[in-house]
C-alpha cells in the first residue's frame, strides 16, 4: 500500500530542462512545490570532473548518463502488421535519467524553430492549397505562433548564454547570420564560437554556391558568461566531449547548475530524487488529477497529492504516463479517434561524407557539441519545397562536435570492417574527412503513433510504451533531395572524394540517429486532433499541464531544445494565470 503524503500545491514530474524551468518560475508564487525525479542527484563536481569525464567508453558507449532500459524501455515495430518487440538496449535515441535529464548530455544546439514550423498547415494552405498535403499526413499548427513565442525563445537563449549571430533583427536581414530565421528582438547573448577548418571549408563552399552559411547557435560558451539569474558559466575548451557527456567547466548550459539549484534553494520547493512516478491518479470522472504515485529507491510506494500536476519527463515518458493514467483518449489509428499517442514523429538523416588529401588537417578532436556551420536555404519554409514534391526541409551543417575514435572513424565505402586494409583506411582518413549532414524534418502520419504494449512490462509491472513508426515517401524525397545539395557543397570544397548518404529506407531503432523524438501529446486548437491546448494544458484534465517535445505536432529540421525551453517559459506564464483562476485556459 502506498504511503499517503502531505498534499502539495504543485507536483512536477521530472527534473530536466522543463521541470527545472517550471520549478524555478513557479517557486515565485510561494506555493508549495514537490519535484519528483526518477534518477539520481548529480552535480558538475564530482560527477563530471576532469579528466574522468573524458571517457568515451563509459559515457558514449555504455550510456552512463542515460535511461537504464533494464528498468523502463519501449517496444517498437515499423507498422501495425508487425509484432512490436522491446528495445533491449539503447540505440536510435538516448533519453536522459537523473537530475538535469537529457539536458546534461546534450550538445547544446539551441535553435529557434522557423516560423513555418509553428504554423505549417496555415502556411501550406496559404501558399499551395490542400492538394500538396499527402492524404495520411496530419499537418497541424501549434496554436501559438513564432511571434508569440519570440519573447520566450529570447528568455531561454539568455538563460543558456547561447553563442551565435542574429540573421534577422526586428525584420532587418543580416548577412553572416541566419537570414531565414524569424525576426528577433535582440542579438544572441554571446558571440559565435571559433570555427574549425571543417567549418571554414563549409562556409566558403556554401557561399560559392550562393547559399547563406552562418555559425550554429550554441549553448557552449564562446566567452565567460553570467546569465540574467546570476549564474556563472565557464568558457568552452573545445574538448570534444559534449554529446553524451556532462561538462566539467559548466561551459555547456544545463539545468543542473542553472534553474534547478535556484529553485531548490527556495523554502517552498522540495526535490526528491530516485522518485520514479508510476502514474497520475485521477478522480472517477477522469477530469481531475488528485495525486501521483511514485516508488522510491527502496521500492516503497508513495502517493503524493497535489492540486496541479505538471508532466516534465522526456517526450516519450510524458506520453507513457498519460496513457498509463488515462489522461485524455488514446489514439486509435484505425478510426482516427483519440489524441494521446497521435502525431509521434522523428527526424530523417542524409548527407555526404567528404574525404580530403593528407595535407588537409581537420583536427576532428577539437570541437564542441554545438560547434557547426549551417545553412537553412533548404529548411522548412525557406524554399519552394512543394515544387520538389514534398512538404518540409532540413538543416544542412558541418558539425565539429568532437572526433572521438570509437564512434568517429570515417572510411570510404568499400573499405573492409576489419583487418590491415581497414586499419590503413582509418589512419589515412581520421584527420582528413568531414561530414555534411541533413537534419530532415518529419511530418506526422496517421500510421505513426504511440500506445501501450499488450505483452511487455517494465520492472514495475507497467505496460511498456509501444512505438509504431516508419519513414514515409514525403520524407525520403526530402532526404534524397537534400543529400544532393550536400554532395554539391562537398564537391565545391575541392575534396578528393564525396560520398552521398541517401535517405534511409525503413526506420531502424538500432543505429543512433537523434534524441529528437517529438509528438504523442500534441498541442493545438482542436481537442479532436490535439492532446493539449495552446498553453500545454490537457484538454481533458485541466489541472494537468505537459511540457516538452511531446507537444510538437510534427518534427522540424532543427534540434528541439530551443522550442522546448521557450515552451516551458510560455507554459509557466500560462500556469501563473491558471493558478489565479483554476479552470481550462481555452474553453472546450
Amino acid at each position, binding site marked *: 500500500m502506498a504511503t499517503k503524503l502531505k498534499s502539495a500545491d504543485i507536483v512536477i514530474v521530472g527534473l530536466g530542462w522543463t521541470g527545472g524551468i517550471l520549478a524555478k518560475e513557479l517557486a515565485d508564487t510561494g506555493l508549495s512545490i514537490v519535484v519528483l525525479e526518477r534518477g539520481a542527484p548529480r552535480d558538475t563536481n564530482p560527477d563530471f570532473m576532469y579528466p574522468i569525464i*573524458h571517457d568515451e567508453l563509459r559515457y558514449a558507449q555504455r550510456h552512463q548518463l542515460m535511461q537504464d532500459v533494464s528498468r523502463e524501455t519501449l517496444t517498437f515495430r515499423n507498422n501495425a502488421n508487425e509484432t512490436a518487440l522491446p528495445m533491449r538496449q539503447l*540505440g536510435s535515441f538516448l533519453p536522459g535519467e537523473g537530475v538535469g535529464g537529457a539536458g546534461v548530455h546534450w550538445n547544446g544546439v539551441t535553435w529557434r524553430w522557423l516560423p513555418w514550423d509553428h504554423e505549417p498547415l496555415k502556411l501550406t494552405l496559404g501558399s499551395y492549397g490542400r492538394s500538396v498535403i499527402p492524404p495520411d499526413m496530419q499537418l497541424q499548427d501549434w496554436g501559438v505562433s513564432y511571434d508569440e513565442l519570440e519573447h520566450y525563445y529570447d528568455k531561454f537563449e539568455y538563460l543558456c548564454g547561447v553563442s551565435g549571430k542574429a540573421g534577422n533583427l526586428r525584420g532587418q536581414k543580416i548577412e553572416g547570420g541566419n537570414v531565414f530565421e524569424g525576426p528577433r528582438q535582440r542579438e544572441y547573448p554571446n558571440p559565435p564560437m571559433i570555427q574549425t577548418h571543417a567549418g571554414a571549408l563549409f562556409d566558403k563552399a556554401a557561399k560559392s554556391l550562393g547559399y547563406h552559411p552562418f555559425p550554429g547557435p550554441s549553448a557552449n560558451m564562446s566567452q565567460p558568461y553570467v546569465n540574467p539569474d546570476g549564474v556563472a558559466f565557464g568558457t568552452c575548451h573545445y574538448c*570534444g566531449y559534449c554529446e553524451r557527456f556532462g561538462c566539467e567547466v559548466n561551459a555547456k548550459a544545463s539545468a543542473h547548475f542553472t534553474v534547478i539549484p535556484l529553485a531548490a534553494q527556495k523554502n517552498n520547493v522540495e526535490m526528491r530524487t530516485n522518485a520514479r512516478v508510476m502514474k497520475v491518479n485521477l478522480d472517477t470522472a477522469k477530469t481531475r488529477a488528485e495525486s501521483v504515485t511514485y516508488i522510491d529507491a527502496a521500492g516503497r510506494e508513495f502517493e503524493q497529492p497535489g492540486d496541479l500536476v505538471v508532466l516534465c519527463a522526456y517526450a516519450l515518458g510524458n506520453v507513457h504516463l498519460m496513457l498509463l493514467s488515462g489522461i485524455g483518449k488514446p489514439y486509435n489509428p484505425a478510426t482516427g479517434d483519440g489524441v494521446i499517442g497521435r502525431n509521434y514523429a522523428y527526424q530523417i538523416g542524409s548527407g555526404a561524407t567528404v574525404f580530403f588529401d593528407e595535407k588537409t588537417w581537420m583536427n576532428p*578532436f577539437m570541437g564542441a557539441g554545438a560547434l557547426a556551420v549551417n545553412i537553412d536555404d533548404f529548411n522548412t519554409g525557406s524554399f519552394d519545397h512543394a515544387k520538389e514534391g514534398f512538404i518540409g526541409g532540413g538543416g544542412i551543417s558541418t558539425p565539429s562536435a568532437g572526433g572521438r575514435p570509437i564512434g568517429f572513424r570515417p572510411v570510404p565505402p568499400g573499405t573492409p570492417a576489419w583487418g590491415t586494409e581497414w586499419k590503413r583506411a582509418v*589512419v589515412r582518413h581520421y584527420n582528413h574527412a568531414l561530414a555534411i549532414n541533413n537534419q530532415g524534418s518529419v511530418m506526422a502520419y496517421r500510421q505513426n503513433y504511440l500506445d501501450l504494449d499488450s505483452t511487455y512490462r517494465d520492472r514495475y509491472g507497467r505496460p511498456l510504451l509501444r512505438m509504431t513508426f516508419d519513414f514515409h515517401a514525403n520524407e525520403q524525397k526530402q532526404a534524397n533531395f537534400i543529400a544532393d545539395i550536400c554532395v554539391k557543397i562537398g564537391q565545391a570544397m575541392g575534396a578528393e572524394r564525396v560520398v552521398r548518404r541517401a535517405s534511409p529506407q525503413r526506420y531502424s531503432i538500432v543505429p543512433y540517429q537523434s534524441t529528437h523524438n517529438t509528438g504523442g501529446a500534441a498541442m493545438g486548437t482542436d481537442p479532436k486532433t490535439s492532446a493539449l491546448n495552446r498553453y500545454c494544458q490537457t484538454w481533458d484534465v485541466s489541472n494537468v499541464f505537459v511540457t516538452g517535445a511531446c507537444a510538437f505536432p510534427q518534427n522540424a529540421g532543427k534540434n528541439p531544445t530551443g522550442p522546448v525551453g521557450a515552451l516551458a517559459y510560455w507554459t509557466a506564464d500560462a500556469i501563473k494565470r491558471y493558478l489565479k483562476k483554476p479552470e481550462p485556459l481555452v474553453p472546450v
Partner: protein
Amino acid sequence: FRFFTPLEAAVVVALVDTLIPKDDVGPGGVEVGVPIFIDRELAGAYGRGARMYLDGPFGQGTPQQGYQLPLPPADLYRIGIADLNAWCVKTRGGKAFDQLSPADRTAALKAVEAGQAEFAQVPARSFFSILLQNTMEGFFADPMYGGNRNNAVWKMIGFPGAIGMYGDVIEKYRNKRYDVEPKSIQDLS
C-alpha cells in the same frame, strides 16, 4: 583472464589477432590488450547485461527491431565461441578456430561476417557483431580498460586522448597538424 576459460581465451586472442593484426600500419589488437579489455567487460556489469531489457517473450523480429536474443553479452560470447569452434571443426578439417592458420582464420571470419556460417545455437552474425564492436571499443578506448596499451592506438591515428584543452590552439592549428603526445585519464590524474 577473469571471465574466459583458458580455451575460450585462446580463441578470443586468435579472433582479435585476425580482426586487428599487427602490421606495417600499426599495433595489433592483441599486443595492446584488447582480449583483456573484452574479458574485463564481460566479467562486469556490461557482460551481465545490467543495462539491458532481458524479459521475455523472445521473438526473432526484423533487423530494424534490433537485438532480441535472451542472452546478455557474457552468455552470447560463451555460446558463440563454442558454436564457432564446433563450426570450424566441422567445416575446416577438424580444427578449432585458434588452431587454424592465419589465412584460414581470416577466411573463416569472413564467412561468419557474411552470414555464411551455420552456428548450432546462436546466429553467427549476432556473435560477430558484438565481437567486432567490443574489439573496436577495446582498441580505441582509454587504456584504463585494458586495451589501447600505452595510448598506442591513439598515437597511430593522431588522437590526443583525454586532454581536451584546445581553446588556445583551435584557431592556430586550423588546417595544420596538431602533433602532441596523447594522454590517458591516468596520465592526467
